[in-house]
């Protein structure tokens, strides 16, 4: 039984990806281009050579963190869709620590990253606390906190903001971070990606092997039984949301410290929401988040190359991603398409479980 279930949790996402690409090819064909040329461009732009691979990994890094944030919260039965705001907060605070503090690199890099993570975790913990004590649904509160975070970080670097780059003129941004806060790069391999992989392994360990992970999963699976067993649902809900937000926040910090070199509001606006796609594709398994994020990252990284080779708009990538998400989220559609009943009936990640809970 178990074997079959784990097989389908690999097979189903793969089928979803293939179906997404096939339908994408059809769309490219309809729009009058050659899908083979387009996909060749996609491939060479994302995996052809060390530059391309580096670009893919760079794109994948915040996606791993965002995906982990969603997947981790889901273990506690929570749906964190505030990744966007948490990421912005992490990026902003890491940016401030990066330019305002003068520390040796060995301290500066982790400190800035952690500060970004902590700032974000406060935002998540607020949503967790509202959920646990007042019953405010976390989907609603995290969406609303996205706006709070977006506007707050924008104000921080605005004309009257405290963290505004004085040399930036009309540009809303922080000053450039010091080189001691910058994440180094080893050839094509960005350090940030290694941090993200380490985070994924840590989260996997935490969920599977630690008592805290057991508490989190118990609250997610059956809050009544958790209470019965003496686990505080309030405490776990706050911790789970806080840690989940922290992951997204560190993703933002990595973006500041490893890619952008400073905080500019409004960068990569979709990142927080891509986390949902990735967590779904990974079926909330922390390790599987890594390849899922790399796939989405590769699609992003290769889209420019694809556009330069053909006339295909990069938006087609969004369509392909949306279709992959659709097929992962609706496995019965895949079963129907393939006339395949035996893909297993293991529990799906039900986005609706949180509603009314």
């Amino acid at each position: 039984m178990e074997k079959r279930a784990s097989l389908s949790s690999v097979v189903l996402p793969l089928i979803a990806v293939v179906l997404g690409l096939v339908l994408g090819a059809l769309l490219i064909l309809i729009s009058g281009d050659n899908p083979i040329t387009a996909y060749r461009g996609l491939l060479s732009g994302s995996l052809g050579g060390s530059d391309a691979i580096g670009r893919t990994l760079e794109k994948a890094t915040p996606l791993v963190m965002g995906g982990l944030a969603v997947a981790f919260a889901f273990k506690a039965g929570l749906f964190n869709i505030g990744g966007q705001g948490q990421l912005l907060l992490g990026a902003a605070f890491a940016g401030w620590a990066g330019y305002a503090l003068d520390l040796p690199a060995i301290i500066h890099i982790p400190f800035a990253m952690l500060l970004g993570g902590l700032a974000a975790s406060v935002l998540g913990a607020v949503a967790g606390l509202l959920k646990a004590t007042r019953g405010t649904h976390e989907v609603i509160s995290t969406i609303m906190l996205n706006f709070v975070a977006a506007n707050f970080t924008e104000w921080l670097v605005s004309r009257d903001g405290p963290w505004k780059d004085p040399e930036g003129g009309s540009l809303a941004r922080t000053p450039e971070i010091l080189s001691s806060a910058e994440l180094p790069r080893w050839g094509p391999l960005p350090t940030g990606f290694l941090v993200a992989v380490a985070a994924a392994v840590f989260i996997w360990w935490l969920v599977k092997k630690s008592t805290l992970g057991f508490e989190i999963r118990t609250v997610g699976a059956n809050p009544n039984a958790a209470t019965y067993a003496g686990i505080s649902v309030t405490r776990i809900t706050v911790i789970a949301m806080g840690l989940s937000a922290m992951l997204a926040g560190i993703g933002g910090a990595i973006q500041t410290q490893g890619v952008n070199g400073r905080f500019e509001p409004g960068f990569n606006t979709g990142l927080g929401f891509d986390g949902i796609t990735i967590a779904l594709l990974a079926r909330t398994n922390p390790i599987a988040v890594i390849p899922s994020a790399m796939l989405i990252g590769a699609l992003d990284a290769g889209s420019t190359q694809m556009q330069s080779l053909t006339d295909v708009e990069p938006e087609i990538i969004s369509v392909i991603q949306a279709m992959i998400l659709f097929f992962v989220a609706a496995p019965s559609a895949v079963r129907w398409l393939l006339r395949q009943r035996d893909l297993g009936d293991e529990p799906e990640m039900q986005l609706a479980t949180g509603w009314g809970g």
Partner: protein
Amino acid sequence: MAEVSDPSEPTEPIEPTEPIESTESIDSDGPDMAEKTARSFDTSDSSPPLLEAKGLTKRFPGVVANDSVDLTLHEGEILGLLGENGAGKSTLVKMLFGIHQPDEGEIYFRGERVTNDGPGDAIARGIAMVHQHFQLVPPLTVAENIVLGAEPTSGGFFQRRAAEARVKEISEQYGLTVNPRDIVDDLPVGIQQRVEILKALYRGARLLILDEPTAVLTPQETDELLAILRDLAADGVGIIFITHKLREVLEVTDRVTVLRGGKGVGTSTTKGATTASLAEMMVGRSVVFRVEKPEAETGDVVLRVQDLKVRDQRRQMAVDGASLEVAAGEILGVAGVEGNGQRELVEAITGIRPIVGGSATVLDQRVVHKPRTVRDMGVAYIPEDRERDGLVGTYSIADNMVLASYNRPPFATRGVRDFDQVDDLAERLVEEFDVRTPGIDVAVQTLSGGNKQKVIVARELSVPKALVVASQPTRGVDVGSIEFIHEQLVAARDAGAAVLLVSAELDEIFSLADRIAVLYEGRIVTTLDPNTTTREEVGLFMAGGGERAPH
């Protein structure tokens, strides 16, 4: 649990207890049995039985749920379907109702071979099923629920009046009193069940399958339901009645078909059967109904509840000044009609629900609104609703065994779990508490009710406790497991624990309790000695009557 019968009492063997290879017709009663049939069904007549299932087999991956099972039901007959949890009763009726398709075998309805491709087919033929968990839409009215899916319409508009009139008509015809305009959500469980039955009758059901219909009912509601079933049968409806309660089987059925391990053990007429003989057919060995227990050797008071006040979910005072004491080495049975504050009383004592007035102490330590603190005071708790509170269904047996001790040595050190230790414990407890499972890694939700409960009992009672709170410990559990769980509770008592047993089953209370407290409207109205009181007297107190004795 059924009536207390002496195991030494000679019981009439109805059928050999060895499983009959049921390739033959199952109506293999001896001639003397046929004479004892309570009602006669014109089997000699050429008219075929209402339902005939022959050699039904259903396999699921790794298990044969039904192995060539036969079943016959005549018009106007009530057939009891008995068997332990996991014997294949549910699978069998799901095939009859079209939820599952049989892998082998045939189903004949009124003499015609049928295949039901789903419940819709079955309903169209006049086969209806009342599930244990009701299939009602709570915010809709009784009439709306009953006509749902086959609404009277005119020009595309729902005819509420017509629906209500039709519902009234059927409900009067069968004596199932309901108010068509009541909102289902507001109705007690017993009435909701009536709505389910009316739904079936509205669709013209001639065969009614009831899956453990009395599990959720109070004794009074059960009596009403049994009367309704008899009326329906008199009207020609054939009824398949699944239950664990042998008393009900004896009271209402005409014949009984027993399943064991997915096979038909046999069918017998109900007349002449006894609880002991039925239990033996189900379990395959004789079952002891009276729990053998020595006199209680009581020690100091462990649990002291004084003038306790607890609110329920709706902020009503569900426990309103209850006082009781339980000493080490005794079982105090709390009898009462459900909904008189049992749940709130138990949850307050175990720290799950806040106490708003009075106090509860365990070994002179005050109970606080913190389940873990209360557990650490030596309190074990077997909750009323095991799926909701007592288990995490998706977790393995092993994880459920350490649900409350996962964070202490040897199961964890410094926040890291030790799975070898957890597995060792689980292996040991599964063995010791006779949990029937292919392994400790199996998700607990796949186990039968009896085995789920054994997992909880094992977890709660495997180490000595000061106080054991057991709420409806054998609800929905098969006969063999009931016996085992009762033995475990008595063993906990004899080991010196104070046991608070809350049960809606008077049989259970009488066979286990050393003292009986009756809970009525949130108060303990009397405490009685089971050796000198009667079921009737306890029943009177449960209903709010009786002489109020000081407690």
